[in-house]
């Protein structure tokens, strides 16, 4: 058992870790009492970002926790890898732009599914994406 404020941490190194990432984020979203639609959006975004961490980042970690901001409560999830990084962030956040075989909706789509989206990346420095979804 974990105390509510403790973050959940997951290594993302294989396909089934993406499944685990979805399950962990869903548990957090339920603890936070997000609505079903908000839960679904956050878990979908987490799935996209966990896959990015695995496929483009060569593996990494996910950390999720509940956050409080005065009257609001939310879920914050951080995906970090030490892969090749992204040279052109603006381009990477464009719908349909893809570095590989995907649809190019992973980053741009997941940004639309959350309330706050921060990305920190540079070539050779890896990529960290932080997303937050607030309960309404």
């Amino acid at each position, binding site marked *: 058992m974990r105390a509510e404020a403790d973050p959940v941490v997951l290594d993302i190194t294989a396909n*089934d870790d993406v499944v685990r990432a979805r399950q962990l984020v869903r548990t957090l979203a339920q603890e936070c009492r997000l609505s079903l639609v908000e839960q679904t959006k956050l878990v979908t975004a987490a799935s996209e970002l966990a896959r990015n961490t695995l496929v483009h980042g060569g593996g990494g970690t996910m950390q999720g926790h509940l956050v409080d901001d005065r009257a609001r409560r939310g879920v914050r999830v951080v995906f970090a890898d030490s892969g090749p990084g992204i040279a052109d962030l603006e381009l990477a956040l464009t719908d349909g732009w893809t570095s590989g075989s995907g649809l190019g909706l992973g980053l741009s789509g997941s940004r639309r599914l959350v309330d706050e989206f921060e990305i920190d990346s540079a070539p050779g420095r890896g990529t960290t994406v932080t997303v937050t979804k607030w309960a309404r």
Partner: protein
Amino acid sequence: MSERVPILQIGDVLLVSIQTDLDDQAVVHLQDDLAARVVATEARGVVIDITAVEIVDSFVGRMLATIASISRMLDAETVVVGMRPAVAITLVELGLSLGGVRTALSLEKGLQALERSRGARTDPTA
């Protein structure tokens, strides 16, 4: 290792009901298995039941669209049934509207839709 999703056959329709949270490898297997089964069974329809599926991300969404395209090329029609409202809302916001994928709200309606389009195909005056 990743599991294989069972593919059931009812007459000339193949039925897949996704009951667990699939990893990407299982999703790719399903796509390949379905294509092979459509040819082996000469199925005319494919029904994919996602009633139990809590999220459809871009990977699974692309799989649904790809299965529909592959089946069409192999002379079978695909219907995706049972999509949850929250999944539909999320898919549209994600940027995937699954334009080429036929949907129905329930398994029963999906089978009816396949029957209707088959009727239209065998009887051009219908």
